[in-house]
């Protein structure tokens, strides 16, 4: 039986027999040609980045099939990091994000709801807003979003942030620079 597991501003997710289908929905405010072009490009790009991230050492769902507006991928069970985060897990997130940024991938929506713990491993999911960017600014925003989620939804956020920094510094050579930029981004008061 197919059941809906998520619905965002862009897409609807259903799961059946361990396979997730992410379908990008049409938007009737835009002309059909543009609408189809955007949905198709993003579907392809998302699938490509998910696979690329895995080659960079980040656990992500395995892509099973692709159609024009739809990605079929492995269903990642387990629990959302949001519910189980500890300093040790946050350190592992730091390692994971460091690997991602090293490859020039920015996730774009790095919240504790988009990280799953499944069979003692952390999986990064929902690459719907991901893109390529080697810049310190884009990576800084990525990290900032993660920190903001910790601050707004978890106790002992500072401890979790420090643990992330430890892991991030360990896996990414430009981590120091990015973390300094995060302070600047915070001061600007955007992306809250």
């Amino acid at each position, binding site marked *: 039986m197919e059941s809906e597991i998520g619905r*965002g*501003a862009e897409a609807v997710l259903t799961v059946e027999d361990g396979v997730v289908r992410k379908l990008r929905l049409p*938007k*009737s*405010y*835009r*002309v059909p*040609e*543009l609408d189809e*072009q*955007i949905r198709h490009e993003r579907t392809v790009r998302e699938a490509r980045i998910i696979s690329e991230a895995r080659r960079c050492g980040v656990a992500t769902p395995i892509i099973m099939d692709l159609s024009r507006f739809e990605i079929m991928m492995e269903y990642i069970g387990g629990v959302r990091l949001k519910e189980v985060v500890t300093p040790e897990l946050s350190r592992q997130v730091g390692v994971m994000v460091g690997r991602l940024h090293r490859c020039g991938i*920015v996730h*774009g929506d790095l919240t504790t709801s988009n990280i799953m713990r499944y069979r003692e491993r952390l999986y990064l999911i929902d690459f719907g*807003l991901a*893109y390529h*960017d080697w810049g310190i600014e*884009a990576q800084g*925003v990525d990290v900032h979003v993660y920190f903001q989620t910790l601050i707004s939804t978890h106790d002992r956020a500072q401890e979790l942030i420090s643990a992330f920094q430890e892991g991030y510094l360990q896996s990414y050579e430009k981590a120091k620079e990015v973390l300094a930029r995060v302070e600047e981004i915070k001061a*600007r*008061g*955007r*992306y*809250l």
Partner: protein
Amino acid sequence: MIVLGLEGTAWNLSAALVDESRVLVEKSSTYVPAKGGIHPREAAQHHADHMAEVVGNVLQAARENGWQMDAVAFSQGPGLGPCLRTVATAARVLSLRFGIPLVGVNHCIAHIEVGKWNTGARDPAVLYVSGGNSQVLALRQGRYRIFGETLDISVGNALDKFARSVGLPHPGGPRIEELARSAGQYIPLPYTVKGMDFSFSGLSTAASEAARKHELADVCYSFQETAFAMLVEVTERAMAHAEKKEAMLVGGVGANRRLGEMLDIMCRERGGRFFLPERKFMGDNGSMIACTGLIMLRAGVTTPLGQSQVRPGYRTDEVEVVWA
């Protein structure tokens, strides 16, 4: 309570008196360059030349009707430095002359506040699009936070640049909108949304080039459809992210009917509500400064003379919205 508002951040010099419920009087004078775009110093000179006449007419109406002013509000920024200084100087003089407080108003926030006042929107995600600005904002933790904005030029600026390159008169928006209505086909143009931000300079250049090969009407149509889809997408994301059920369109480019229509469709599809202020409040006007000044004054906010310096790079999220 009656507040005098002075606006003059760019093209339009405008003065108005408002009370809690309506605009009592508004007078304006618009700088029109002999050719090309806006020249900051010339625009400031225009404002200086017409200040006495514009403000004089408003004050005369006040005298004739026995309206007593409680404060002078002025647009403190963001805007062109020379224009801002001209307006701020006039505001200080009026404040001293009448012995009433000054209220320095953020120009972007004034667009939002007058829109809410005019439409009855309560807590919308706001798309603010004009010749100088393109931003998506929403109130969060006491400030109008910027959720998305342009990475290069504003959408109004992109429309004007394209218009100039194909020989259409300034401002480009209205003519492009008109031509777009007779288009026959959509021509693909670069669609650039990065995270929550958008970019228009590449689109403007690509459209200018496309105009050499295609019907101008088709290019105008495709430009609008592409640029506006970018704006609507980010507005929708901001609504989802900030959990807002309302959207509102403000700023000069907001006069474009197609943009309003697209936002309306987006809102209806997600069960939200769309608000569009009256056309007279869309472009820069003195009433929006007066209206915001009045709201701020009622919340006890005034600007001491020593802090009335202009702020050309004044950001929306620097202002604590104590009146919300």
